């Protein structure tokens, strides 16, 4: 991939009198990895030499093979990606597919990073990945894109670790890799390397504005409850009662769900918890239950001592959030023309819409972006830090708009 010839990495923002920027997205639902990669890559190759390539690949495909095929064509530097729980492309929402999102042109500069972590070392892994900012030739607007392993520890630590390096000036966006709801193991891609428990990052700097939109539109169901005992991603008691039982009773869970952990995990997808923040409620995805200890398991921390809500949503609220997040991202461009969008969409929102209405989400996205390139994937957790120091979300759509 071409290296930007302008300025050195440590200099102040650089300007280009005639910047060229392009974004392109390709996708495929072909079952064969080779065929799918070739199909998804074709529009990228037609657009020019990309500086950054994001590969979002269903676990039905061989991510290593897809990465090798992409790297053979355009090189391995600037190539990151992850496994998914569904893919987003300009014209469809797919499962079992492959989407490639890319950008290029002299108006963008890019650097990529990797941090290999574990549940205990997730913050350090995110910091390691975020240090790619040190190598970035800065332009006027910068964002750090993070792809993490949502099945590895408290994902708040990913935001904290990245923020330690990025600081107040660089917003964070991203999502946690998926495995088609198997909840067993996800993959992260860095160059040709396929990893687990890792954080991969891409720092993007642009001459033109970048906008970030975040919305979930879930509403509390009833009064909040005190989180009386929790540790990290595990909630033991709500109001001093076993959290799993409180949750099952409050949502009036069917008998089968009360007995079968797998059924429970699937059922809980559309029934998140909300935690009280200063002026909003943050959503926490319930990824499972421990039927022996009666604990609830979540993707990110539910802090002890705080207030938790049982949350409810429907197709309408999901679609409303889609529109709001995309519109918010475009508004962040302050009138500059949109060139493309990158989306991190919680898999639980997809579950609410189900196959029958998923096309409506694409319609909502298209109503904002027109016919410009858009792509992304269905996640196990979303990252968007635009203010404050936090920014890990669940059941949320995070949209990055690029002018």
């Amino acid at each position: 991939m071409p290296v930007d010839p302008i300025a050195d990495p440590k200099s102040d923002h650089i300007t280009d009198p005639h910047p060229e920027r392009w974004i392109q997205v390709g996708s495929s639902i072909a079952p064969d990895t080779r065929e799918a990669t070739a199909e998804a890559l074709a529009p990228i190759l037609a657009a020019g030499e990309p500086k950054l390539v994001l590969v979002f690949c269903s676990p039905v495909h061989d991510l290593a093979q897809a990465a090798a095929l992409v790297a053979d064509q355009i090189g391995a530097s600037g190539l990151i990606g992850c496994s998914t729980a569904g893919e987003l492309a300009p014209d469809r929402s797919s499962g079992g597919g492959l989407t490639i999102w890319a950008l290029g042109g002299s108006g963008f500069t890019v650097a990529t990073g990797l941090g290999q972590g574990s549940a205990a070392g997730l913050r350090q892994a995110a910091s390691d990945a975020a240090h790619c900012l040190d190598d970035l030739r800065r332009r006027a607007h910068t964002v750090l894109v993070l792809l993490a392993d949502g099945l590895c520890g408290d994902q708040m630590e990913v935001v904290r670790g990245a923020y330690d390096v990025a600081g107040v000036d660089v917003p964070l966006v991203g999502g946690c890799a998926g495995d088609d709801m198997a909840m067993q193991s996800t993959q992260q891609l860095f160059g040709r390397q396929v990893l687990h428990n890792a954080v991969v990052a891409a720092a993007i700097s642009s001459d033109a504005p970048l906008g970030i939109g975040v919305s979930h539109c879930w509403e509390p169901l009833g009064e909040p409850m005190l989180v009386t005992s929790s540790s990290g991603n595990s909630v033991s008691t709500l109001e001093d009662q076993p959290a799993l039982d409180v949750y099952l009773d409050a949502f009036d869970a069917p008998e089968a769900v009360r007995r079968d952990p797998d059924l429970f995990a699937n059922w809980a997808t559309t029934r998140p918890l909300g935690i009280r923040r200063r002026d909003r409620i943050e959503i926490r995805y319930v990824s499972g239950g421990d039927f022996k200890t009666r604990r609830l398991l979540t993707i990110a921390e539910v802090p002890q001592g705080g207030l938790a809500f049982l949350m409810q949503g429907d197709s309408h609220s999901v679609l409303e959030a889609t529109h709001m997040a995309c519109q918010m991202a475009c508004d962040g461009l302050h009138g500059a023309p949109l060139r493309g969008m990158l989306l991190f969409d919680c898999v639980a929102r997809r579950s609410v819409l189900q196959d029958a209405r998923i096309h409506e989400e694409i319609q909502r996205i298209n109503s904002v972006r027109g016919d410009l390139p858009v792509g992304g994937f269905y996640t196990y957790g979303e990252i968007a830090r635009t203010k404050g120091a936090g920014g890990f979300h669940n059941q949320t759509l995070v949209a990055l708009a690029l002018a």
Partner: protein
Amino acid sequence: MNEVPWSLHLLSEVLAAFSVEDPNALRNVINRVAEAVDAEVVAILRQGTISLCIGLSAAEQPLLIAHAQDHPASIELGSGQLQTYWAPMGEGALLVVGRLSEAFNLEERSLLRAMGRSIQLSAQVLQALTAEREAKDAALRQATHDAMTGLPSRSLVLERLETMLTTSAAGDRLATVLFVDIDRFKQINDAHGHACGDQFLIAVASVLRSVVRSDDLVGRLSGDEFVVVTLTATRQDAESLASRIIERVSRPLLLAGKLVSHSPSIGVAIAMAGDSAETLIENADMAMYRAKDRGRGCYACYDRTMRLEAQHRAAVEADLRRGVRQGEILPYLQPIVTLPDGRLVGFEALARWQHPRRGLLTPREFIGVAEDTGLIVEIDTLILKEACAIVGRWRTHHPDHPLRLSVNVSGRTFVDPALPDYVARALQHSGLEPENLYIEITETMLVEDIESTTLVVDRLKQLGVRLAIDDFGTGYSSLLYLKRFPVGILKIDRSFIDGLGVDLEDEVIVKAVIGVARALDIDLVAEGVETKRQMEMLVDLGCDYVQGYLFGRPCEASEAEELVEKGQGSLTSSGQ
């Protein structure tokens, strides 16, 4: 949501985040403070320095320090105006919170003040608890780990091994103990000093840890005794591990600038039904003694006969200690004569144990135990002192018949820095001339740890005492040390003498050694001469001195004195 006091719950969250288990608790807490009020910057300032900070780069942090006294409501950052609040934490510390959007309202300021005080208090409690825990951990570690090497000590090894015996009882792999003892460690310690000895043990511990699997246990029982506790499926697996340890541990180590050669002996014991941890370690210990019997750098696997041997060895040790204490260890003297006339020129002093029940015992029956227990140094110095006294007395009675005396010392005694002092005292008390005393050692002892033996040899040289090299021809046979050290006598090993008249090769070797001795002006003594044929051949080959049954067995001082009284006469007629 307005009716819910959000700030109270966020304060609860912050306090709940303190954990004695988490070393980064304070860092996580300030993240929570930032997340609670959507702040981009949180820092703790103590005594004009920043002890923790998120959100600002190292280049930006001095901005906070610059305003630590005036506490402005906002600070200009590159990315915008940072609205700040400076919450006192107590004892001069400040919790500084900054937000790029709106200023902090009354409820937020109240929350941040409460957080500041609470964080300080919690941090102090955490510090106290951490200190208490560390002290407890240190005490526990001290009780269960060897302070020098950091390895688990005997009590922890026994505890872990007991657990392993229980959990592995039904499995395919059996608990196995490898008892590792460093050969000649006492000599290394004596020769190089205790500080180097400690360094040596630390290095051995490190090597042992590196050679075993991560789930194996390496412990130090005492001194130079280590154990490896592992699980093995077959005896071959255990033997393979023992070989690997011997190979790795035997690699020379650089200590205080000197390369030290060493080797381990390893006893292997694999758990049998009903074995306790103590029994298994005892079994491995017994096997280690068998390994030592096989020579240095060997291993042996435990079998049931070893327990009887160990009991016998323990009994001999106790008996020997008693014998040494009660003066039952005596010098026996074997004459050394000239060739061809058989004139008496001196004696070699040899230890004998006059046992009250078992009669006269030769060294073969007790030297092994003496060496293992360290009693050998006491025995060597005792023989040295007594033999010098005897020959010194004869010197007075027979002033016209000067006699030389050879005294054997073990390797352990020879590297003991105190040996020259023992020798000096023995000479002083006996009146024996230094030039007539020879300290008899093997050539292996001289060459093996040349750095440490050099110090001893140099001091012996200063005393005027020379060395007799025993068993010459069987070891290194390096001409270099013959020139470097004060060697006065070479003794040709009896195995070559046995071959005289039988094996032409032995004859050639004897001839060559005689040639070397002549060239270097060193006296040559042929040992183990038992027949006239051997004597005649040695005469023909030009050998100067001989000793052996042909000229007299080792005998008590009174009997030896009779030989002295015979004066210059030939002893060949008294031979067998």
